[in-house]
């Protein structure tokens, strides 16, 4: 805890405060734009950091990262378009609350939960950098594959009413992740000679199509003159403290999950929020509200989302390994300033490390302050009648899909994803399971194949390591729980149908 002897006010020079504010504002705006997100924001701002001191550069980029995580939630809640892949789970419960005429409440939950998650991430970063990094580095390919598998199995709890279709949804998500150049051999897989597909299918157009455009299709099938918000008071970012504190236990649990996923390299916020969603669903006090505007679910995923930021910095500072793609860009900014993150950083440049610690805390506070005052501006979009909202969502979805990689094919991917998912949703396929599988697809395949290469093709590599056995036990437990839950749901439905018949 030597960092407590480091005066945090030393980093709060006027210029550093301005950089934190700039990073926060830009991060929130960029996070809210579908198709962009923290990695894009960091990449856009890196040229600005060339003339800055390293500490200022780090402060600005961390502020941007933290604010972008919350910013992704703004478009998720207000427009139903996930601003970032990590904000997908926010759409499921944030949008319904907004559609009930309370976007300010939904955004309030996301902001407060994000702030708690961010502070939790800061505490983890400070207290556990050393020990947790050593543990994370012990996880090799077989363990990481099983963590991915655990995540996939947890999707059955996202949809226990139709497990076979949930499995098919998972497989479709995994399949979509195989499109493109094979990461090991460079072989073209399912690209059909298209050079753009060689880079694989980006998550951004798929999610823009799956969530935003399908939402438009639902909207135009309903009352187009309807306005989700009629009372302007409801767009203010406001949550009664008593209401928020009810969910603090879930928020803290989700923050733990988020930091763990941030610490383990290669996981990140996308899988973290999906895993948290599945976990939080099981402990939801209002199961009938899950997916229909449950504050428990919304606060859980948002806290997790922002806790990943602190977790992602842990392996960077202690081992030089970025925990998430955005942290990799932050690392490149450090390297450009001649600072090489790694085990020696804390001994050679403790001031920089402590700057990161305090910078994360200040970035979280800045995100909260700006979020409180600017969120209502975004929320006012919902005062528009549905036919205007539908048109706005369409243009932002298409532009967002294109903006991710500048590939024309991404626009078509968004449209095709929208049409396919619209049909599959009507037939009870699980969009949640598909989403999780797609997010985890490349990670699962990479670790699976590398494990088999290491073991010369023997599958025993997934069974003869102690941590693997623990993970298998968790997987089996989760399957058993899901099957029992599905059976209980089925028998409850059968009893309810019988009761209705006798009436």
């Amino acid at each position, binding site marked *: 805890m030597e960092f407590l002897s480091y005066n945090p006010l030393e980093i709060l020079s006027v210029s550093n405060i301005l950089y934190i504010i700039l990073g926060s504002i830009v991060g929130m705006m960029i996070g809210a734009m579908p198709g962009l997100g923290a990695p894009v924001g960091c990449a856009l701002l890196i040229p600005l950091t060339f003339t800055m001191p390293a500490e200022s550069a780090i402060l600005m980029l961390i502020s941007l990262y933290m604010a972008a995580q919350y910013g992704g939630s703004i478009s998720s809640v207000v427009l139903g378009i996930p601003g970032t892949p990590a904000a997908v789970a926010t759409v499921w419960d944030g949008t319904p609350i907004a559609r009930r005429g309370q976007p300010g409440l939904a955004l309030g939950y996301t902001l407060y939960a994000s702030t708690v998650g961010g502070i939790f991430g800061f505490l983890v970063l400070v207290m556990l950098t050393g020990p947790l990094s050593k543990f994370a580095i012990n996880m090799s390919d077989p363990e990481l594959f099983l963590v991915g598998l655990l995540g996939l199995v947890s999707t059955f709890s996202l949809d226990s009413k139709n497990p076979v279709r949930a499995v*098919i949804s998972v497989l479709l998500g995994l399949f979509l992740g195989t499109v493109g150049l094979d990461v090991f051999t460079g072989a073209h897989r399912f690209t059909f000679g298209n050079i753009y597909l060689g880079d694989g299918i980006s998550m951004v157009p798929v999610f823009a199509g799956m969530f935003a455009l399908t939402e438009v299709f639902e909207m*135009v*099938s*309903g009352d*187009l003159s309807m306005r989700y918000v009629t009372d302007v008071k409801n767009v203010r970012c406001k949550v009664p403290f008593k209401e928020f504190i009810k969910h603090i236990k879930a928020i803290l649990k989700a923050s733990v999950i988020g930091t763990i996923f941030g610490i383990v390299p290669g996981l990140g916020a996308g899988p973290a929020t999906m895993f948290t969603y599945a976990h939080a669903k099981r402990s939801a006090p209002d199961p009938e509200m899950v997916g229909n505007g449950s504050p428990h679910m919304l606060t859980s995923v948002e806290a997790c989302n922002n806790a990943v930021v602190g977790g992602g910095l842990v392996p960077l500072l202690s081992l030089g390994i970025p925990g998430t793609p955005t942290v990799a860009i932050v690392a490149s900014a450090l390297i450009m300033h001649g600072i090489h993150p790694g085990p020696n950083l804390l001994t050679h440049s403790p001031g920089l490390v402590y700057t990161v610690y305090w910078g994360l805390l200040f970035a979280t506070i800045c995100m909260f302050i700006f979020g409180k005052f600017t969120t209502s501006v975004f929320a006012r979009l919902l005062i528009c009648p549905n036919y205007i909202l539908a*048109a706005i969502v369409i243009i932002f979805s298409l532009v967002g899909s294109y903006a991710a990689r500048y590939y024309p094919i991404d626009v078509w991917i968004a449209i095709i994803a929208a049409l396919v998912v619209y049909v599959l949703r009507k037939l009870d396929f699980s969009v949640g399971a598909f989403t999780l599988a797609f997010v985890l697809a490349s990670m699962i395949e990479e670790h699976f194949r590398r494990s088999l290469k290491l073991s010369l093709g023997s599958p025993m590599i997934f069974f003869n390591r102690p941590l693997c056995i623990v993970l298998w036990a968790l997987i089996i437990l989760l399957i058993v729980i899901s099957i029992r839950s599905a059976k209980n749901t089925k028998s409850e439905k059968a009893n309810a149908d019988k009761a209705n018949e006798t009436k």
Partner: protein
Amino acid sequence: MSYKKASIIVLSILIALGIAGCWLSIQIADSQSGISGSSNNFFGGPRFYPLLICALVVIFSIWALILVCRQKDDRIIEIHHKKNLLFVIAVVIIWAVLWQKVGQFYAVSFVAMAALLFFLNPEEQSAKKLLKSGGIALLVVSFVYAIFGAVLRIPL
């Protein structure tokens, strides 16, 4: 359309796609296939994993198809205001085609948005409605230009 009928059609398509996927997976070029004594290369190679996934898609789709065929109850999938839905899908597709063939994203977007707003607005047809649609479309496209074009310099 009946839920059962739609499920049978979709699952049949998935089975066909799964089989096609298996066939395409086998065709994937493997640069290491020439290395002798490398049976493990198949499992670690680029073909095995997509082949496994596609095979599982076929198996589970057949399972789901059997469950659907044995299902006794059925329901109708309702889609209201089909005309609106088809119009939106058509506009989005034409928008994407024109964007790529003609370029001029902002002009094409203005026209497409104005058309969407005019058609979807449930108010009665009038010159006021036309002006309103045009005005809103102009505002939105200008905002998109301000953010994506001017600030972020994304070439649309």
